[in-house]
């Protein structure tokens, strides 16, 4: 779905960084992706390969680090970690949970030459 736009966002940031830090090529790029970010990782990896063509990150390897999904439980008041967006509260079993992070989509760092 929007993995193409995400890859384009990554490319813009890389081109901006390439000017700022004057590097020619990105070898390895690390992303941090929250479990609730709704990112299809395979689709993003594919879009990355396509969108980076002709950019300093053409041919770079991509690594995606999962960040946990957290939610506030409206019944027990605890902030809990959820593996899946619709899991019940592991503390009290309630289904009234509001995500509190886990929607991160960040470039963490990159190895450049």
């Amino acid at each position, binding site marked *: 779905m929007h993995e193409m736009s995400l890859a384009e966002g990554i490319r813009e940031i890389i081109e901006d960084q390439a000017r700022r830090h004057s590097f020619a090529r990105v070898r390895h790029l690390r992303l941090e992706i929250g479990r609730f970010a709704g990112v299809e990782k395979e689709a993003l990896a594919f879009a990355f390969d396509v969108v980076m063509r002709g950019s300093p990150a053409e041919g770079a390897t991509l690594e995606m680090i999962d960040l946990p999904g957290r939610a506030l439980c409206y019944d027990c008041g605890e902030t809990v970690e959820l593996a899946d967006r619709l899991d019940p509260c592991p503390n009290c079993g309630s289904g009234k949970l509001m995500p509190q992070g886990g*929607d991160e989509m960040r470039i963490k760092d990159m190895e450049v030459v």
Partner: protein
Amino acid sequence: MCTVCGCSGTVKIGDLELTHEEAHRLGLPHGHDHEHRHDAHDHDHPRLSGGTIHFGLGVAGTSVPGMEQSRLIEIETGILSKNDAVAGANRRVLRALGAYAVNLVSSPGSGKTTLLCETIRHLGAHPLTVIEGDQQTSNDADRIRATGAEAVQVNTGKGCHLDAEMVARAMDALPLAPGSFLFIENVGNLVCPAAFDLGEDAKVAILSVTEGEDKPLKYPDMFTAARVALVNKTDLAPYCGTDLDLIEANLRRVNPTIEVIRLSARTGEGMEHWLRWLKGRLAEKTLRKAG
């Protein structure tokens, strides 16, 4: 730096500090302590023709290969940080005007345009403008203009959502009035519009009764991001055997704080509730601006 005239510096109105560029967008008078550099534009402008802005018409890139020792650069930058910055600028422009912006999101055909036309009719002489997002055609903007309201159509081309830059360009093409409503009809899609901040005050999700009670569970991100859910086409509920209470329970399951309004753009049922909500939010915003 201001990409309009190349100036840096800010412009203050009340307690709100606007960037130079935002001041230009609002047409606010401001001083310059240097000469204008109108060669400062380094971005291309999408084509604006007949009230329709076209995006996605071509990209280009350059490549610079090289060989050196590698180093690690830490960035910790959000992938959508550029979008979020433009959304922030849109939000400050709207705040300076005391205008209230609604981002209408839904799957295709849930009744966004019909509901907007009815909303405009009910709001009567209240100042408002509309941004219509679709991949192709200007049908929806034409339908809005037929009500007498000002509308800009944004065609996203291949894009399946509006982004903040598209909305910024459209806002600049519209006569945004102080105290007005700005309605943004997003591309019909229950997935990615959730991730793209446009600078709106609230996302409003529309779900029609013919789509099935489980949609909030299948597409939780959109309904989590929305402040209000409008359950539309209630006139059809008896024919579809739709369980409206179950829709509402599923909405609360993914977003315990969501406000749910049942309505029918066709019969007008529930419309006053929705209009009361809109006017209430606008009044709040205007008060905040005054206080």
